[in-house]
């Protein structure tokens, strides 16, 4: 079953990404999750506050706005698409995600079944 692991980080967490320990931890985690065949895809994302752009249609008109869709304390900092047997397996990978050691949180969302 496929799940999205959405990694949220605080502003401080995003700013602290240059920290060598953080980078080493992520390098190891990404290697482990891909080498095991669990990760199907994903990516880290640049800072939402300074780089996000939001698009929507308002009454048929294109509206483009600077900034993220949701203005929250934590921002979406990256995501993995994983394929594991069940929620407990997904939780095991979430528990190993380095961001959680820096105040980040991981939201696990079951993916919609792919149309055949």
């Amino acid at each position, binding site marked *: *079953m496929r799940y999205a692991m959405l990694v949220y980080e605080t502003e401080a967490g995003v700013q602290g990404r240059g920290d060598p320990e953080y980078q080493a931890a992520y390098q190891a985690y990404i290697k482990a999750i891909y080498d095991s065949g669990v990760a199907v895809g994903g990516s880290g994302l640049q800072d939402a506050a300074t780089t996000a752009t939001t698009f929507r249609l308002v009454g048929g008109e294109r509206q483009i706005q600077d900034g993220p869709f949701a203005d929250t304390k934590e921002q979406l900092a990256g995501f993995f698409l994983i394929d594991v047997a*069940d929620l*407990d397996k997904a939780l095991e990978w979430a528990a190993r995600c380095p961001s959680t050691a820096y105040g980040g949180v991981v939201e696990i969302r079951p993916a919609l079944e792919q149309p055949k």
Partner: protein
Amino acid sequence: MHPAELAARASYGRLLSLVVVRTGDLAGAEDALAEAFLAAVTQWPFEGVPQNPEAWLLTAARRRLVDAARRRSRHDKHAPLLVGLDDTAEGDYFGDERLRLLFVCAHPAIDPAVRTPLMLQTVLGLDAARIATALRVAPKTMGQRLWRAKTKIRAARIPFDVPLESYLSGRPRCWRPSMRPMAAVGTTLLGGLRLRGGSRRKRSGLHD
């Protein structure tokens, strides 16, 4: 008392646990078991009570799940798993998966407020209205909470496993808060039921 009612009171939770454990769909398992009980109530008076009522009910419920899976979609990848499940209920003893069911009800991914009601409904077979009264929650609210929890168990695929060692460190903490209100509700319900007469054990549906 109708033999089907006796079986329901004595074995509801055990039957449900056996039906649900391989599909992971709690609401679907409840429906299938309810249909099996309905079939028993209508068929047994004419055909006689089967030698092993519980095994009959289990087989009937599993057949219904197989039929439902076939009807839903021939692309359903669980359908092949379900086919053939119905021949496992033979013999006098056919297992008990209530522990797995309890662990799913107490899973940390389930809203803590609904863990106790979920246990009461699935393992003890109490209906939502009665649980709502005992816990002083509006019946509609209780029904919605239970429905939401069952949907999550199926959709997020919470496994029907006795948790692994790595996980046990976290799970008992989730367990403990559930057990006390559960005991309190049990006592309340048993007390109320006893006042209405009948043996405490039979009237409550508690067995073992």
